[in-house]
């Protein structure tokens, strides 16, 4: 694909995805009883972000366009999974810690420990 076409398509796509995400959220914020529930809205925003990620990787960074950049794509996929682990595992662990360190939970723990 011609590079100018690539950059221009990427610009238009990214612009459209950005505007969609912002409009949905701003509409939700300004009309309190909105059609979209909070979790659904967040899910849609995240999906739009992922699509824009793919669009920018392909149209701007040409990942997947040349045969030579195969390893670049591989590295990115590897990093992506690394990121998933770092973020999801942190949130999971910190969430559990947050719960387990409350006074009620800690008292329960001491009680459980004392019965040997």
């Amino acid at each position, binding site marked *: 694909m011609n590079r100018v076409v690539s950059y221009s398509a990427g610009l238009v796509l990214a612009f459209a995805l*950005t505007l969609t995400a912002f409009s949905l*959220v701003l509409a*939700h914020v300004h009309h309190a009883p909105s059609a979209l529930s909070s979790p659904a809205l*967040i899910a849609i925003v995240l999906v739009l972000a992922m699509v824009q990620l793919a669009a*920018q*990787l392909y149209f701007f*960074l040409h990942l997947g366009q040349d045969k030579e950049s195969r390893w670049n794509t591989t590295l990115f996929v590897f990093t992506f999974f690394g990121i998933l682990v770092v*973020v999801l595992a*942190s949130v999971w662990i910190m969430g559990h810690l947050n719960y387990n360190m409350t006074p009620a939970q800690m008292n329960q723990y001491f009680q459980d420990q004392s019965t040997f």
Partner: protein
Amino acid sequence: MIAAAEHEAEKASKTYFLFWTYLMTDLLMFAGLFAAFAVLRRSTFGGPGESEVYNLPLVLAETIILLASSYTAGLAVYFANRGRLKVVMGLLYATAVLGASFLALELSEFASLIREGNAPTRSGFLSSYFSLVGTHGLHITAGLLWLVILLVFLAKRGLRGSMIRKITLFSMFWHFLDIVWIFIFSIVYLMGVSL
């Protein structure tokens, strides 16, 4: 002669791959900052929360500006490969102006937050917010410095093989920053007011 050109191309492709590897490690660092933000976004310590603090229209403007600058940077690489020095310098200059505008808007955001008493030290939420968005801003600043140096070199030496490589590396860095910004505006700002 052909061997020399092939050698140049191979050297370039290795350089780009190495730089791409660095960008992946940088991405992992941002992931850590994102994780910290995810954990701390509700720790407002009696201070203001996300909906009180974010200025979404401003963030939309910042996003569009950065997106446009990523476009001009990409085009600069295209024209550099075609030897169009004046066009390249114009496009890089446009990238710099857009990047500086983005930074100015972001700094005004930070300044008004701090003026209201919502400094990074106010709460865990604000600490993690300033760390994440501030680190991105620092990267943008470094990129702007890089741009200035590129423009000076281009003015003095014009377009040669090594300059084309340098411009390509810069644009990889700049595209990478726009990609990180996608997640900042989606996860920090858009999610922040929707939670």
